[in-house]
């Protein structure tokens, strides 16, 4: 109970700090939503009138607390730019970005765990060497670049993929998923490479420990030792990494959505920053922050399942 309370408190505090940072950052950068709205047709009178209307003349802290109080009541406000409620706008885009992140995650897990175990089992074998070298290369290619290569190779040369041919999930779910596969691969590859490397190292480390020797001495087969004893312990750092990777994938999708022309959360975020559309930016950043915090919480819980000795409470 005390743990949960503490956890929730620290989450709220983190969110508070994040949201304040965004607000402060916006007050530092040039540009103003009203001048932007009227562009070159702005007159001083119109600007004054709309600033008043939108409550932009109030001091920063007043605006911040007005936003904060309505936010905790579940009201994310109205987009300056689109003049529609932020909640609906984001709700429409969340499935796109979330699907992309989850697909990337699944691809990462599907590649890295079997591969990591395989090369750890055949340490110093040919495959181990080849995969280690490949890993090193893939890790050093940033997703936006592999994204461009993938678009070029599959889209322009092989023509199995239509660049920019994104289909909304409301129109055709199958085509939507199909379009997201390659972007998800682009995001997942470097993470999968890292996870593979981590798992390999971790398995090899655990395999050298005393309890492993004991397990062998009790007559267990290699596979039984590996899957029943070693892997469980070896997974702990990997789970930490994957938790962080999932959070990172949402951030990574910001770049990838641009490269592949996917109209998800990231594009809204980028344009809203450019348009000084604070309500939208605040809402999205808060969403990302909440997600990261929840993932962290889940990682904590998973630790306990894997190794009950780990006390999550401090």
């Amino acid at each position: 109970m005390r743990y949960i309370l503490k956890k929730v408190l620290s989450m709220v505090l983190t969110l508070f700090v994040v949201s304040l940072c965004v607000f402060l950052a916006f007050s530092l950068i040039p540009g103003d939503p009203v001048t932007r709205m009227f562009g070159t047709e702005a007159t001083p009178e119109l600007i004054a009138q709309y600033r008043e209307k939108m409550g932009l003349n109030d001091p920063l802290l007043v605006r911040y607390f007005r936003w904060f109080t309505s936010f905790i009541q579940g009201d994310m406000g109205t987009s300056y730019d689109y003049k529609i409620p932020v909640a609906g706008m984001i709700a429409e885009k969340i499935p796109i970005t979330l699907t992309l992140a989850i697909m990337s995650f699944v691809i990462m897990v599907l590649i890295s765990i079997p591969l990591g175990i395989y090369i750890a089992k055949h340490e110093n074998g040919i495959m181990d060497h080849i995969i280690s070298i490949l890993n090193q290369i893939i890790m050093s290619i940033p997703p936006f670049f592999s994204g461009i290569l993938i678009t070029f190779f599959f889209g322009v040369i092989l023509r199995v993929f239509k660049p920019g041919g994104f289909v909304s999930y409301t129109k055709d779910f199958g085509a939507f998923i199909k379009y997201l596969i390659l972007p998800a691969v682009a995001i997942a590859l470097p993470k999968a490479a890292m996870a593979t490397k981590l798992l390999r190292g971790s398995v090899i480390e655990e395999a050298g420990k005393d309890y492993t020797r004991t397990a062998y001495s009790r007559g267990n087969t290699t596979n039984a030792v590996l899957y029943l004893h070693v892997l469980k312990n070896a997974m702990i750092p990997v789970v930490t990494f994957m938790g962080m990777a999932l959070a990172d994938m949402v951030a990574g999708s910001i770049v990838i959505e641009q490269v592949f022309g996917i109209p998800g959360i990231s594009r809204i975020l980028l344009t809203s920053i450019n348009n000084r559309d604070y309500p939208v930016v605040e809402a999205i950043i808060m969403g990302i922050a909440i997600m990261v915090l929840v993932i962290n919480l889940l990682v904590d819980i998973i630790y306990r399942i894997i190794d009950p000795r780990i006390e999550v409470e401090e």
Partner: protein
Amino acid sequence: MMKKKIERKRGLSILLVVLTTLTLTLGGCSSKKADDSSTDANGQTADASSEVNGEAGSEDGTVSAEDLSQITIGIPQDIDSMDPHLAKSAGTREILFNVYEGLVKPDADGNLQPAIASDYTISDDGKTYTFTLRDGVKFHDGSTVTVEDVKYSIERNAGTDGSDPLISAFSNIESVETPDESTIVLTLKEANTEFLAYMIVSIIPASNEDPEGNPIGTGPYKFVSRSPQENVILTKFDDYWGDAAYIKDITLKVVANSDSIVMELEGGSLDMYARVTSAQVSQLSDKFDVYEGTMNLVQALYLNNAKEPFNNVQVRQALCYAIDPQTIMDFVSDGKGTEIGSSMFPSFGKYFDESLNDTYNQDIAKAKELLAEAGYPNGFDFTITVPSNYTQHVDTAQVLVEQFKEIGVNATIQEVEWNTWLDDVYTNRNFQSTVVGVDASTLTAYALLSRYGSDAHNNFINFSDADYDAALAAAVKATDDAEKTAKYKECEKILSEKAANVYIQDLPEFVVLNKNYTGYTFYPLYAQDFAKIKPAQ
């Protein structure tokens, strides 16, 4: 130990979120090109790109490129409002041209044709405009346009409810009367025979309480749906009063990454894209037609006439003598473009004075002489501020820097984000010089020339000249067309001779259209007329 490690990592990831947040927000100042561009100041809606939203081609798997009842058109940035009276960017206005109409609307030759009004008369003193409502014009919701709707639409822009007018010229409206069910009488406070050009203002139903979420107009296309940063979908309006459109469904797809335009056109995700660069044109296959027109804007090195050293007319003239527009056009767009010598471009027909192109022809010796006379025998240093999202303007600035070197003047380019440009340069006038294109919001010489009046609110270059003010006032007052034209030409001449700005060109515009379609038509102001596009066969 392990616990500690985990704790530390968790802390790290929270730190990561905070940092990412900050980087993103702060990075926003400089990131991203296409999205933020386009308002009138830059006629060109920047270099955007479009990605068709796959709907077009693969919506139901059976729709192929052969289905010509629909078309996917790439747009550089999302529209800023579906409410025609609040939509400000040029890129939005040109799309809403298909959804909304005014009492009159411009045709491709730049003439105003009756639209919702079937007829109009202007009193000799230029103060009273009488419109006859066209019979049976339908709104997209099926209701018939009434004089009340017209009155409401005009008054909404004039701010008669006490708010400030959305269109500043509308503050000149004295009253809007509707003596009977088919007549609208517009009375002005001060005579203005050009006011008809403003009657392109969109007519919307007075009863519609949500013009943003439920846009209703009278144009050949009606609004279906939109998804922010994704697309806007329009469909043909069957009860349109005028010539029916050819294509049934239009998807306007937001292409956020301009680098992907060519790939999306070739890959079939896009059928059309307006304003590609000459470099992109050269990458296209023969599946496409490229229509060549002009952007209808005044591209110049705009000089802050109130700041040293540009408060000295000889310095400004020296810069004009230093440059060669043709060299700039060769560099920026393969030699395409139209030279201009004042704040006017050729599409304005009778108002354009080609002779002003020769006020200054490149003459390095003359330029140096003027600099010496002005007290800068060794030249000077200055900054050119350019909105980074407009490739052509940035390229132009680069050529200018080289040309100014010839006369010993060192220019430095400062690229800024569009919002920063709006704030610093346009609104606060805190700049030395800038390269942009200025367009006209209506088909009047006034739209281009009024901003150089000494106390005009949008006189961002701080030009101030008594003769100019007098000529402009005379032009506005004149009711005789010949006299009016002469006075406006006098204004242009003053701008040219006083070297208000270093005038360069009206940029070329390239529109790419898949050969399956034809009929793209250029307008002398911001308009993309989708109703004229038709299948090639």
